[in-house]
């Protein structure tokens, strides 16, 4: 199946305020570009990632979801990121059981300095979701014309 060229994935990212959020900041400082298809929800730690939040995101129509955490072994809260990872795997099983592709959900481990990697993961996930197509749970919306007016 060929991906629909007009489809822009809408992806929700859960990031801890330590390495995850900081890697996104570093990507900004280094001007590492990536598609404007992700929005970041900040959590105090990816140990706070609730399976409910992941499922909420899909239920509310996100095409893809991923978590950005501190590198394994480097969690500010000892092993919060490992708990988050276990829950991500569990949520994937639930997605599979309701007929959604588990690849729509993923988790990446970065250090705060890894801006280029952050941008690369955003790119990768966007591409992956583009291939998978829109989340079937999405509500239909009229496509609006969103013309920008830079105020400079």
């Amino acid at each position, binding site marked *: 199946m060929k991906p629909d060229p007009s489809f822009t994935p809408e992806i929700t990212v859960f990031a801890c305020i330590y390495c995850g959020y900081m890697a996104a900041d570093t990507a900004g400082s280094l001007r590492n570009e990536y598609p404007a298809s992700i929005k970041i929800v900040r959590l105090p730690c990816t140990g706070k990632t609730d399976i409910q939040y992941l499922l909420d995101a899909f239920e509310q129509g996100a095409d893809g979801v991923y978590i950005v955490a501190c590198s394994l072994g480097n969690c500010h809260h000892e092993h919060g990121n490992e708990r988050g990872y276990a829950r991500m795997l569990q949520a994937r099983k639930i997605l599979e059981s309701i007929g959604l592709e588990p690849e729509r959900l993923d988790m990446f481990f970065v250090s705060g*300095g890894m801006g280029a990697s952050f941008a690369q993961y955003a790119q990768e996930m966007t591409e992956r979701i583009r291939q998978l197509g829109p989340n079937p749970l999405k509500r239909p919306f009229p496509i609006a014309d969103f013309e920008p007016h830079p105020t400079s």
Partner: protein
Amino acid sequence: MYSGDPIEAGLQQERGVLVIGGGVGGMRAAIDLAEAGIHTYLLENTPSLGGRVAQLGFMFPTHDCVLCRGTSDHGFGCTRPAITPALMDHNCHPNITVLTSTDLISCEGQAGDFRVVLQEKPQIVNASLCINCGRCAEVCPEIRPSGFQLGLSSRKLIDKSAPRSLPNAYYLLQKTDRCEDCRKCVEVCPTDAIDLEAAPKPMEIHVGAVIMAMGFQPFDPSEMPELGYGRIPDVITSMQYERLASRSGPTEGIVRRISNNEVPKRIAWLQCIGSRDQRNPYCSSICCMYATKEAMLAKERIDGVECHIFTMDERAFNKEYNFYYQKARDDFGINYTRCRISSVDEDPETGEVILRFPAGRIHEEAAHGQGAIQEERFDLLVLTVGIRPPKDAVKIAQQLGINLNEYGFCETDKFAPLSTSRPGVFVCGAFASPKEIAETILDASGAAAEAMRIMHDQLGSRTFSRAQPFLSLESGSTVQEEKPKDPAISVVLCGCAGEISNIIDLKTIADQITHLEGVKKVEILPLACLQDGKQQIRDLIRSNGANRLVIGACSHRTHEPLFQRLVAETGINPYLVEVVNLREHCAWVHPQDHQGATHKAYELMRMGIERIRHAVPIIKEERKPVRAALVIGGGVSGMTAALGIADAGYDVHLVEKDNELGGNLRHVYYVAEGDNPQRLLRDLVNRILSHERISLHIRSQIVRHTGSVGDFRARIRSQRSNGSFQEEEIRHAVTILATGGKEAGGSRYLLGKDPRVIPQSELEQILAHQPERATRLRSVVMIQCVMPEDGIDYCSRICCTNSLKNALRLKMLNPDCQVVILYKNIITYGFREKYYIEARRRGVLFVRYTENDPPRVRIELSGSRLKTIVDIQENIFGRTLSFEPDLLALSMAVQPAEDTSKLAQMLGVPQSPEGFFQESHLKMRPMEFADEGIFLTGMAHYPKFLEECITHSLACVGRALTILSRPTIQLGGVIAVVDPDRCTGCLTCVRTCPFGIPEIRIDQVGVGGLDGAAWINPARCQGCGTCTAECPARAIQLRHYHDDQIRVGLGQWEQPLPELAAD
């Protein structure tokens, strides 16, 4: 000059403390002093804080980068290169004045009253106006090698040292002749922050004490041309390797060859480059471990890579280091070869590095074919460079009038290890002697404690508060919002001088979000974070009766405290402000996609507004700490800690289980350095006994310990002289565990069966008290690393130096006596290497044995006499050697004291695999537990030397005084709270918490009115939220991250209203 945002005036009035050096040690010392209410100047001669540690990718042996664990407060942010949020730009500690790019000129006066003259270099970029847009660097035509990346990448003449430097601003490396003509940076700067004509600025400060934390200089291997550094491209220094392996390095952590950018397949490390040689006859202490770390990182990241380390001894002499080294060797397959290299050459065809070295020295192997020269090729050769004194050590020593030692490091005293030759001037970190991060941190807090002793009348005088999420100067909370009102949200969109507004259509967004629920007013500001913008925000909030603020600007990490402070001034609870990142997370990463960026920005703003609409005010609890401390253990560590706290003016309960004070120090008669430890003992005991603030509890033990920081309770059980017991209940703010260690026993090598076999401590007694017996000895053999039969293997750190001390004393008393030391590794780190050199010079024989082939001791009948025979396999000649000693001294391991386990259980603190107490973080918090207010010191932590025990105790004093001197401590904030009505007491949170904080309390009533529900101590909760995500009943909520705040807008993106979007 740069200081925390809110305080500018009044800094010069009272006496402060000057900390020289903004590396990890200087930052730690400054923060401790600031926390104790003393004004601190943090002086750094480069433009950014962070020092060498900021350049390291990972720390051994945990491989973590988390400097953020260095802080015990609930602030956030991996704060590299700063050490805690207390040094972040917009949340700088109110008691710290950061003076970057500033040099020391002179220091007159005396302890308690120094006049220091400083000179700030020209501040060409005004850091307080820099918004980090980077336009200056973009237009700058001059390219230079990056200092932070050690020449592995380049930078502009005007640039940042690293993306997250501190102060968070650009700076000009050095003004060149061409700058005058160019001036492009001046033209493009949107905030007029650049002034090429800026002049140096002298200043004078008045301080009571000075702490030197100048760190070290890595050895420059170009001094040894035979190693090929600078000539062969793939020969690099270990610091350069750190940058390559660092995730913030030029390759984001992928190690590549310099010559052809390929990933290396074979890497070699050469140890002791610039250490343990003729010119630098000391051991740099850290290189064995960091080379092992670097090799392990290579193994983890590069498939099939071969790692060879060429070394003399493997010095892994701290907690967990021995396991780490064994793991590297046995599990990771890293090869350790014991030799110095004969030659380094380059293969001109392939660029490979060719090493020649004597064959047959692979670790733990017998000596097959030794002596022949072997040749191996490597893709990358890392020179493990040692530690040299800091570059300007001589100059600063002259300016401050302090002495340097024979190696050019700061001269210190064994029993006053942080004091210099000038009273009131203290030293910490690698400038005192080569040392690792953990010891630098200990030194730093200890030096802070020494400064606090001088300045004790000022402790707690500059009160500050954590009542707010940011650090503020006033005590107590000013914001007291009773009930959440209906949300009335002001929204500010910051254009960031075009950085945001050139990409994102803020006008459209403003039009769109006006219609969102709760939004009262939306305003677009050209620049929100400078003075004008801040005033406009204040006006906006006041004129609209808003009770919440959402601001679309830059990173929440850097600017949240600034906006929180702003709304707090207007009387709004600072937890009711939300910073949405439209710059780093949007405009800067989607510069080509205006439409996409605008849509995303709208979505981010919408989520931020929803999040704050559901937010509730948070008010922290306050507690006045009890002005007393409990110290458990009356050895050198406990006594030092007790005196430090008592001298500062707080009560101390000192609990000792024995009949008398002194602990192990009672049995140390002389030390390698020559000082008299018994004088130290007498001095400490006399001072303890006569101190009015110390209550001494002798023959006493703790039987109960409850409470949390600032308010602990303990029950002390003491035995009276008539044998009966009495119990006493005390209250205290901090507890220090100084329970010590003991020499292990056991029966290895015929100990206890043959009178000639004695522990090393007994040999010391003989040498001290029966020197005439020493003169009759013909042969003494010492065996190092004697672990008890059932013990695990670890290095006890002090035994090698102890044995050398005894060997040298023996040789002095009786030069003809044969002294043989059988060892695995000689651990004479730092300047102790001197005694190893001296022992060899005096003819002490050193024979190495391996773990798998230890010496054998037997008794043989010779005529009518029984002889003790020691056989050992000598690997260089490949023969078995036999000795017939008159005395066989065993260097027994040091074990934790008996009550360690009992106390650990009572206080709820962990133990290490060796059985010692386990601190909260091996590197960054070596003196404290995750539980605030409980500290550990001395041999209760790990075997250590006297001076190290003293330093460790002073570090505990420094940290303890930050609690004792605070008028109030604030608890809570962003913490997890249990709703007992929904709690079934299932224990999920108890098992899930990474810190073991939740407990089921019987005084809580759970679901259905049943007794027992979970309770999370607000003094301990770290606010990660892991329990909340796992609670099956959703009975736990994390404040500031309530489900209602997160479960909104998680899904598909809202489309803007079409009629407006078409506008």
